[in-house]
């Protein structure tokens, strides 16, 4: 498998401008500025089949093409580096090891929508990452890749690094924009959509770190080469961050369409401590869990995960072996969501903590008949009825855990205690 996103990771000084240029860095930007109009660039990215790696998998070129050309307002690209979903740590690797790829990709995206000021919004806790990125930005500006008249092309672009204050919801694109505007990180109601009314009411594209970091390779190597990798609807490569009970957890770059079981057994070295696999959350904490027996035949791409009743999401693979208490796992996740709901809409604000409280009881021996039905009903009343997809993200996991490990939940309630530990 060819490395696209991780191609520079092992090079010494990969995070410096010199190191990046030694690996061919900024050639894509030169090519774009010399040879491509924004329209042609958008077509090229469309042709690559690249889809957003932030979770929703929206086609990147198409997202850019929604930005109105004739709108006289400033336009913004925001690189979403807020990565805070439990089990997701792929962007951090790129930020710390290959920051210039992100900078170059963001400049390319900015050029595509004719933005002259753009932003990188980085999670507040990523202090080291912010330092690395800021250094990269300074180096890029010093080398003429940022600022006025980039590489003599006449194109001006400023790129500003903004640190968040530590809230998961600021990764949701409109929560991010509210925060970047200086407000509380509350997601905005849609319509209007960011493409027309985003940051400060201006046309805005929010793209994930991994999405943007893929752009330089796509430009230098050509969309066709990228599109040749992967499946019909999932092109190129994807980072998967594996955590949990495998021998070799870590960040992996995988061709889309790679067999999931093979990935876990071979690439990740199989289960640690010789225990049996119990379940996998394949796409970050907010995606429905899969039982071990559901993994057969699944390939690592958008279509296959969706057919299996879950989603590729961010690529955060959380592997759980037989020693895992699924009630406790569900409770743990629900605690995260109860803590991170932004508190704006009634169902999510009130419902997330309600679910957490019931799961807490069930895990700690005070479960009652009817509790599980209640959780399913409450989660059903949250999902789909809220301002932002957090409501879905928070309500799917507990429902999926209960449906897939119902017996274990029932045992907890019947026994009046945790039956695993």
């Amino acid at each position: 498998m060819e490395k696209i996103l991780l191609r520079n990771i092992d090079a010494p000084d990969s995070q410096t401008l010199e190191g990046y240029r030694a690996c061919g860095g900024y050639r894509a930007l030169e090519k774009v500025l010399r040879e491509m109009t924004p329209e042609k660039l958008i077509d090229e990215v469309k042709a690559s089949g690249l889809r957003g790696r932030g979770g929703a998998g929206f086609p990147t070129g198409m997202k850019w093409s929604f930005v109105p050309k004739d709108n006289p307002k400033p336009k913004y690209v925001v690189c979403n580096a807020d990565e805070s979903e439990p089990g997701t740590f792929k962007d951090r690797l790129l930020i710390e090891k290959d920051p210039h790829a992100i900078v170059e990709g963001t400049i390319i995206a900015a050029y595509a929508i004719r933005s002259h000021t753009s932003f990188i919004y980085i999670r507040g806790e990523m202090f080291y990452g912010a330092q690395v990125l800021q250094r990269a930005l300074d180096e890029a500006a010093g080398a003429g890749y940022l600022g006025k008249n980039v590489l003599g092309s006449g194109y001006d672009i400023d790129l500003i690094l903004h640190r968040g204050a530590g809230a998961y919801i600021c990764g949701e694109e409109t929560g991010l924009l509210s925060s970047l505007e200086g407000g509380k990180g509350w997601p905005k109601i849609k319509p209007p959509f960011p493409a027309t009314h985003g940051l400060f009411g201006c046309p805005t594209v929010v793209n994930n770190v991994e999405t943007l970091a893929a752009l330089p390779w796509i430009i230098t190597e050509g969309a066709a080469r990228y599109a040749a990798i992967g499946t019909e609807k999932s092109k190129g490569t994807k980072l998967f961050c594996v955590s949990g009970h495998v021998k070799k957890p870590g960040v992996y770059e995988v061709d889309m369409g790679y067999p999931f079981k093979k990935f876990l057994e071979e690439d990740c070295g199989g289960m640690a401590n010789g225990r049996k696999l119990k379940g996998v959350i394949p796409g970050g904490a907010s995606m429905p869990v899969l039982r071990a027996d559901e993994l057969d035949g699944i390939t690592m791409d958008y279509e296959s995960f969706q057919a299996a009743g879950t989603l590729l999401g961010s690529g955060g693979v959380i592997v759980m072996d037989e020693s895992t208490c699924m009630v406790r796992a569900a409770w743990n996740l629900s605690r995260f969501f109860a803590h991170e709901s932004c508190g704006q809409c009634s169902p999510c604000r009130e419902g997330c903590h309600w679910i957490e409280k019931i799961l807490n009881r069930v895990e700690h021996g005070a479960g009652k008949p009817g509790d599980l039905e209640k959780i399913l009903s409450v989660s059903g009343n949250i999902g789909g009825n809220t301002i932002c997809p957090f409501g879905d993200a928070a309500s799917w996991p507990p429902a999926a855990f209960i449906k897939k490990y119902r017996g274990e939940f029932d045992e907890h309630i019947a026994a009046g205690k945790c039956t695993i530990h």
Partner: protein
Amino acid sequence: MDPVKITIDGREIVTEKGKTVIQAAEDAGIDIPHYCYHPKLTIAGNCRMCLVEIEKMPKLQIACNTLATEGMAVKTQSPKVLEARRAVMEFLLINHPVDCPICDQAGECWLQDYYMEHDLAASRFEERKEHERKREIFGPYVVFDGERCIKCTRCVRFLQEVTRTDELTVVNRSDHATIALFPEKTLDNPLSVNVVDICPVGALTDRDFRFKVRVWYLKKTPSICPGCSTGCNISVETYQNRIARFKPRVNEAVNSHWLCDEGRYSFHGLTEGERLTSPMIRQEGGLVAVDWDTALRAVATGLAANAPAAAILSGRNTNEEAFLYSRLMKQFVSDGGLEVFYRERELTEVEKILKSPDRSPNFRGARHMGVGSEAGVEPLLKNIIDGKFRSAYVVGEDLASLSDLGDRLKSALGKLSFLVVQDTRMTPTAALAHVVLPSTNFAEKEGTYTNRRGRVQKLNPALVAPAGALQDWEIFARLLGESYDRPADIFAVLSRQLPAYAGLDYEKIGALGADLEAQHQ
């Protein structure tokens, strides 16, 4: 207007392009339940109470943020909608104390009302409720109960968008989200109590009103605020013949949904205190009670014998009263001797959103009726101080207590040969009078006010005047030797005589008033 045809629950409705489903429904008399939506504030879309089903859309949509588009089919009563609504009610109540018996909002609480309409189920919540701050003082008139708050952000948006004073915000996440004052801020802007009106629940309550009376005992009389000449439309809410509170009445031509704090509480100063219940005449040793005939005869002879007179009518007297007073006093005054009380003061930017720079709600109408001139009351007050008059007839204004001229007026009025004071209470000015005539306050009157911008609006009596007092118009009519059954009869006469009022029909002024200009055209 670009017409757009939609159906709501199968009913065809024609609305305009740019309207949302909730607005289109409201215009057609269909109520889509909602908390956070307020017609005068930006859309927040956070309560999720207004979720409706729209054909061809897989998910329920919020009616407050969905534009009506041609051919759209909306369902507000489908099983899916009813369940979502019930669920939202359940969510809003799980951490709510539901202590209605000790909550001042009970009886006009949207949670109570919608619970009865859309939920009516026992709560399935068996966990520990989250607790929040109780009884936090937000400002001089507003107190906050964090546990009753549903985080609809109406209050926050009002302070951001209408007053632009930004005292409140939302802090914390999840079910710990709550409304809070910004550090060092107090909710004390001149329109602050409007947040109480728009708060759909008992989270923000009126410190002046709360716990005085249960709202279902209130008698509500539509009327006009006596605070200034903006003429905000109000509901005068009374209990046992006392005013408990003012609430704004929506009138887009005047005050929209709002009321200023000063006007809202103006009834205290105007209605409280011991009332005069008998006319009085000064005799050796002080004022003594007499009957009305005696008192009115004394006024007539006293004024006739002591020309020239100064005549000052209150800015709170009605058009009907001013019309009679004008005709009465023209017999006794010379140029500049007859004025309606009208003084201006500086307003802050926030005050200017609603308030006028005076405390004379009907100064404009009084001038139309012939009481006073553009020169205003200031030269007249000066001439009184300078001793240019031998007599005066002062109605409803306590001149001796004015903060700037009070002392000098008091001494000048004290030197007059003949002073008539017509008022509701024994004011320092009345104490100087030779004849005191007990009359009524704005809340006891029927009649019309003409506001600063020329809109004629109706006052309705919310209180019964004390026995012994007469309506100002009755007093003037008797002094004129005329007789009317009710203010409407006086209005009929004045509208025949004054071209600007020609064609206005007392009965048709209605609850929202009528513009003079429009009638004039």
